[in-house]
């Protein structure tokens, strides 16, 4: 008989996938497949027009209906996955990259650099949300590449702030203090202790950020500043569907549904990753 509760071993339960996580994983596999090999998922041609079957609602032949030129929306949405994912990934990479540079400078190089970087980040924050992206597009003109860079740029200050805070809290933590007391060299402390503990949360941030980046990039396309309408990109498809909204709601609904699904998938996976990394 024990009065003190036995120290419980970490059970395997925590590692098991929950239902939303499993669903998100399946969706992620589907999106990746659609991005890498769209012809396997939807064999048709996303640009093939068929004026006789324009504006058809959902049916067995056209599960998501057809658009004003009779193009199959399902095929177009599937073929747009690659574009949207690449834009989302690239924008997140740009944002995180800039954020890492700024955050590391601020977190590691002492108070003067920290002060300067903080002011830069503050100024960037004064162009909130899409404002920075819009100014960037004003200067460099609309298009897929500029809108991707623009989205990356507008997410950078947020990442920089989080990374700086993470670096500083790791630097002040007990294990770094212990390593310093033990007389480890600075580079060793940096590469062995500080960086691994700062980088792990970055995966989480990145995963969570992809969904948001896809939404923002699609927003720019929708506003006519990103991908141009004949392209099978989700935001551009929605923008094209806007004209026919009274009669053909499916033209707008399904591309938007895919945007929401990718964003939700990214969030659920990001959180799952976060839980596992934190309790690892």
């Amino acid at each position, binding site marked *: 008989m024990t009065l003190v509760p036995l120290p419980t071993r970490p059970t395997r339960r925590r590692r098991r996938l929950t239902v*939303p996580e499993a669903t998100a994983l399946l969706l992620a596999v589907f999106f990746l497949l659609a991005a890498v090999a769209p012809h396997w998922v939807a064999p048709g041609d996303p640009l093939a027009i068929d004026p006789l079957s324009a504006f058809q609602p959902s049916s067995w032949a056209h599960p998501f209906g057809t658009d004003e030129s009779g193009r199959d929306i399902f095929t177009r949405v599937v073929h747009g996955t690659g574009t949207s994912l690449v834009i989302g990934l690239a924008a997140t990479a740009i944002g995180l990259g800039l954020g890492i540079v700024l955050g590391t400078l601020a977190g590691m190089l002492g108070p003067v650099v920290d002060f300067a970087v903080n*002011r830069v980040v*503050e*100024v960037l*924050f*004064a*162009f*909130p*949300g*899409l*404002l920075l992206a*819009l*100014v960037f*597009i*004003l*200067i*460099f003109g609309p298009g897929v590449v500029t809108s991707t860079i623009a989205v990356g740029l507008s997410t950078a200050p*947020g990442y920089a702030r989080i990374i700086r805070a993470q670096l500083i*809290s790791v630097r*002040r*933590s*007990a294990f770094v203090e212990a390593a310093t007391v033990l007389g480890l060299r600075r580079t060793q402390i940096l590469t062995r202790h500080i960086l691994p503990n700062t980088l792990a949360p970055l995966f989480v941030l990145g995963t969570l950020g992809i*969904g948001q980046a896809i*939404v*923002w990039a*699609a*927003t720019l396309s*929708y*506003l*006519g*500043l990103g991908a141009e309408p004949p392209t099978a990109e989700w*935001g551009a498809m*929605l923008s094209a*569907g*806007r004209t026919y*909204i*009274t009669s053909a*709601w499916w033209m*707008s*609904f399904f591309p*938007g549904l895919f*945007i*929401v699904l990718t*964003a*939700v998938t990214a*969030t*659920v996976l990001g959180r799952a990753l976060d839980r596992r990394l*934190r309790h690892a």
Partner: protein
Amino acid sequence: MQGRGVRVLARLGGAVFVLWMVATVTFFAVRLIPGDPAEAALGGPGSQASAEALAAVRAEFGLDQPLLTQYLQQLQRLATGDLGRSYAQGIDVGPLVLSQLGGTLLIAVLALTLAWLLALGLSTWSTRGGRLATSIGSGLEIVAAALPHFWLATALIVVFSIWLGVLPPISTAGVAGLVLPVITLAVPLAGFLGQIMRESLLDALESPFVLSARARGESERGVRRIHAVRHAALPAISLSGWAFGSLISGAVVVETIFARPGLGRTLLSAVTARDVPVVIGVVMLVAVVYILMTLLTDLASRLADPRLAERSAHEHGRSERGQAARGRTRG
């Protein structure tokens, strides 16, 4: 209190600095735009402006001066509130932009309030219920946060304007015209705020001050209302500056879709028409409002959390070490 006075001055100085930098960045960034600004002022390359007309415009906007002089002149004009003249509309930017501010602020404030209420309601309801309620709550929040404004707006128009015919698809002057734009802006924001509030609410419910309140025999409702909710609101309050930014981006979309006059629509049409003075005007105005918002949220967090005010009055290092210790136990 001398210390407080110094702090307030430092904050104000910081705000002025940020505004100055915003003006500087936009001034030099705009010079990167390819093409002749004088030509842009006359309607772009297609206008076939004569050399005399171009020279006249250059003289009028000071474009024939050296860059540094132009920069100083621009700062001087900004300091007196003169934002220049719109290329496309030929009217002063200051009054134009200010006249658009009201409409945007109205939907932004309404949306922020609605988002707060939704987030508060959802997170308190779902943390009180069982596991099912928690799953439903966090599921709703994640989906809401993932909804793009333009898609939500389209869906709302299809359902409420086209199918049910109860609300106007484009914004009319009355209250009915406000409903759909405000819901469109509020729902994604509520998703974000709700996620954050739930985390901090759960944190708060496990904290020592809630335990001691329970030990004093306070009712569950009292514990939640007085202690936990207030604690949970803190991170969401400090995010309100960020929330305002997301509302401004949302306003660009919502005002365009619902054909509402406002800053967002003005900004978008200025960006598409490359109407540089209007873009600068909107950016400066948004920066001013944003900075005011962050100052206000700072104040609000201090009011909601007396510890913050005390902490900054004492020596700074101690609290930071305390925070690091808290970070350790959680990590």
